[in-house]
């Protein structure tokens, strides 16, 4: 490929733009679309990209790092703590049992036991990129199956570190020494994780206890930085109101932490996950999420295309049956182990299938581990190539298996009576049912009222100073422009029931109404407007008149009622007069609405309404039996009955 950067970009982007919508249309999810795009532009189909596909993958794997940052952002420490048993229990069971089963299988087909253990460990890894991406895309992260999947993936992320430390012990002593020095430069291009624990780190030459100290120090640094440095910096950046600067800061945080982790030999994904956790409770949670999400998406897409392009079809072509059998075998073993574990922790049938099929592929960590195993001399190149092909194929097959599960298996489970009780404890979904956009005096009053009645709302505001202040008072406020689709999405608009729009200005309100109508039609909108003219503008967007609230209407009528009281009017009569006035005013307002575009007609119509209102209220004052009410008014009765009989 010689077209340079622009031509490369066109190839990748065009492939994605063509393949992903087609895959989506066929109900396959974006992952399979990217994989297909990679195969199409890869060396074995159109040949637009060759060996450099692996470099692309190296770069694109940063998407996984970013994804874990975002996962951390969404998780919050308290939720992670709730998941601790699942992570340790289900995670370790999955890695150990799968590794043992795969090792036994490769021993059976003629590998040395040491190589078999190494390969088993490599094959026990699942693809965080594929599994999490498809769970998120389908909105299944909050289900028990989704949470179990996440727990297993997180455990694997952590497990990679000791595994990388363990592998050299499997090799003979002199081989290990040779490999360790080679490891630094020879990570083959796969992986942000490949540097973990070995020569490439800055602290590699230090004695063991100092390395441990450095690692612990780095973890502490991430936590302290997140709490006391990053958040204040973000506040300053937010105050500049330059969106791209905020995005740049967000990228800097992720890249910086990834670099720090690499320096001390920890997995960058793990480090950014930790940073995400720390920032999850800050007011910038949703803004960071929405700013980084497109980068993560693009990088992951690129990564999947790299996987597609790297499938060695020559190798597969040379021994198609063998590779096919191995792929099916590995998937079958992983699926069986995962399903068994799912049964053991009492996942219901449908959740268990979601869990076991989602994680049945061999993941991107395996590329890293296999390359390392090869360097250690535990495995010959032919085996390595075969296993890499199996890994790539298994990743490509996952979306197809999921499709099969969704289309053919799940529909029959709906009435499945033997579905086991769901374990509710770990459904982690705290999205509030109410969102309030714009948390000025108006919005904060609404928020306080709802909170007083046990309804917690997610609050979005664009004024970072105000956000700061309100958070000090314990409100869950997030900084960001609530008219943006991505921020609404991140704040949980997809799951909420009500969106209260409390913006001060008409323009933002209109923008928000349009965004919600387009993207979240299920949301009930309740809209504050400044006055009658604004209310008409909102009405023109097709909003239900009963959901439009003119901000001064109730207050001014309430004041008017109190004025009547000070003049000596009876409280209940004044109260009823106020209520009737509100009703009349609203009715009159919507009655005029259709005609207001025709100015002439509007004027006459308004005059008509004013006249009508005057008449109605005059009538009420005089208690004219023909109009208004005269309940509890004995004057009328007296007039009819009393006069002749008086005396």
């Amino acid at each position, binding site marked *: 490929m010689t077209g340079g950067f622009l031509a490369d970009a066109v190839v990748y982007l065009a492939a994605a733009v063509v393949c992903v919508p087609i895959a989506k249309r066929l109900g396959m999810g974006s992952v399979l679309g990217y994989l297909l795009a990679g195969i199409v532009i890869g060396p074995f189909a159109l040949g637009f990209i060759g060996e450099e596909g692996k470099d692309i993958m190296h770069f694109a794997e940063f998407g996984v790092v970013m994804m874990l940052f975002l996962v951390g952002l969404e998780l919050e420490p308290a939720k992670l703590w709730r998941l601790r048993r699942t992570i340790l229990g289900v995670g370790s069971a999955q890695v150990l049992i799968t590794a043992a089963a795969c090792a036994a299988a490769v021993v059976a087909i003629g590998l040395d036991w040491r190589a078999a253990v190494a390969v088993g460990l490599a094959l026990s890894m699942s693809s965080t990129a594929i599994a999490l991406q498809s769970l998120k895309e389908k909105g299944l992260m909050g289900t028990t199956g989704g949470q179990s999947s996440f727990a297993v993936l997180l455990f694997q992320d952590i497990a990679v570190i000791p595994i990388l430390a363990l592998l050299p012990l499997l090799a003979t002593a002199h081989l290990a020494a040779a490999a360790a020095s080679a490891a630094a430069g020879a990570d083959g291009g796969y992986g942000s994780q490949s540097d973990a624990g070995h020569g490439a780190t800055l602290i590699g030459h230090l004695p063991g206890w100092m390395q441990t100290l450095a690692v612990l120090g780095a973890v502490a640094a991430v936590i302290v930085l997140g709490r006391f440095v990053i958040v204040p910096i973000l506040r300053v950046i937010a105050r500049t109101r330059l969106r791209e600067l905020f995005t740049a800061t967000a990228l800097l945080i992720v890249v910086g932490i990834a670099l720090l982790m690499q320096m001390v030999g920890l997995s960058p994904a793990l480090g950014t996950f930790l940073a995400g956790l720390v920032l999850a409770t800050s007011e910038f949670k949703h803004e960071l999420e929405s700013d980084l999400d497109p980068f993560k998406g693009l990088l992951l897409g690129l990564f999947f295309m790299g996987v597609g392009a790297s499938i060695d079809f020559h190798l597969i072509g040379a021994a198609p049956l063998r590779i096919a059998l191995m792929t099916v075998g590995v998937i079958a073993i992983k699926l069986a182990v995962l399903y068994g574990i799912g049964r053991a922790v009492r996942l219901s049938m449908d959740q268990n299938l979601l869990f076991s099929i989602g994680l049945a592929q061999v993941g991107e960590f395996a590329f890293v581990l296999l390359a390392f195993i090869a360097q250690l001399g535990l495995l010959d190149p032919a085996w390595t190539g075969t296993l890499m092909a199996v890994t790539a194929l298994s990743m490509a097959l996952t979306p197809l298996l999921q499709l099969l599960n969704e289309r053919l298996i799940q529909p029959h489970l709906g009435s499945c009576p033997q579905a086991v009780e769901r374990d509710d404890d770990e459904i982690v979904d705290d999205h509030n049912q109410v969102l309030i956009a714009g948390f000025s005096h108006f919005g904060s009053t609404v928020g306080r009222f709802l909170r007083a009645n046990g309804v917690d709302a997610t609050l979005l505001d664009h004024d970072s100073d105000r956000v700061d202040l309100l958070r000090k008072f314990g409100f869950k406020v997030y900084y960001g422009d609530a008219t943006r689709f991505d921020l609404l999405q991140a704040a949980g608009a997809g799951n909420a029931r009500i969106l209260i729009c409390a913006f001060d200005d008409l323009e933002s309100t209109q923008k928000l109404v349009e965004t919600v109508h387009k993207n979240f039609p299920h949301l009930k909108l309740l809209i504050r407007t400044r006055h009658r003219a604004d209310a008409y503008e909102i009405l023109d967007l097709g909003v239900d008149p009963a959901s439009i609230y003119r901000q001064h209407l109730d207050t001014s009528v309430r004041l008017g009622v109190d004025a009547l009281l000070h003049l000596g*009017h*009876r*409280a*209940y*009569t*004044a*109260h*009823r007069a106020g209520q009737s006035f509100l009703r009349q005013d609203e009715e009159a307002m919507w009655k005029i609405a259709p005609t207001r575009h025709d100015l002439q007609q509007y004027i006459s119509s308004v005059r008509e309404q004013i006249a009508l209102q005057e008449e109605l209220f005059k009538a009420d004052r005089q*208690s004219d039996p023909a109009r208004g009410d005269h*309940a*509890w*008014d*004995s*004057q009328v*009765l*007296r007039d009819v*009955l*009393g006069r002749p*009989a*008086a*005396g």
Partner: protein
Amino acid sequence: MARVLVLFAHPRLEKSRANRSLLRHLPQIDGLTFRDVYEHYPDFNIAVAAEQALLLAHDIIVWHHPLYWYNTPPLVKQWIDMVLSFGWAYGPGGDALRGKAIFHVLTTGGAEAAYQLDGFHGSTLGQFLLPLERTMRLCGMDWLPPFTVHGTHVMTEAELDRHGALYHRLLKGLVAGSLRPDELHGHATLNAALGGLPLEGARE
């Protein structure tokens, strides 16, 4: 010396000649508390604790209201439902009102003769008040006959003043202790117990 609480309920006092007149005759004395509930709760959102505290601070409760459709104005029913709460006014431990006396002061547009078994309405006022009587008795209160002002639609100012004077005498006597609740039983109305209207022109 008894402490008397007059709870007054009229949704539209400004249109009621008879009740405005009666209120003018309320004695302005220590020991008598007047509370206009429609002025306090135009939105019907009754402050239960405040009402209960008032009840506890008095010995004799007077409900003063017009009779609408053989019944109280709606806020009185709201008050009963909210203030006479379970465990406070009735039920286990609900003895806060035990031993207090209660009666109603009623104005009706129709004549007294209409509230007889053979009259226009076919029942006595006592019969129409049965749900209220049972309610108050359930709370352990001493139910007294009502003080009534009938025929307000056709009443002259002078006649209203004579009723006002009798009302004045009743309240003043109860506060002073010269009238004792247990002596007021056995009559159809408190008006009768007091010996009827004072002579025309008599002022208290």
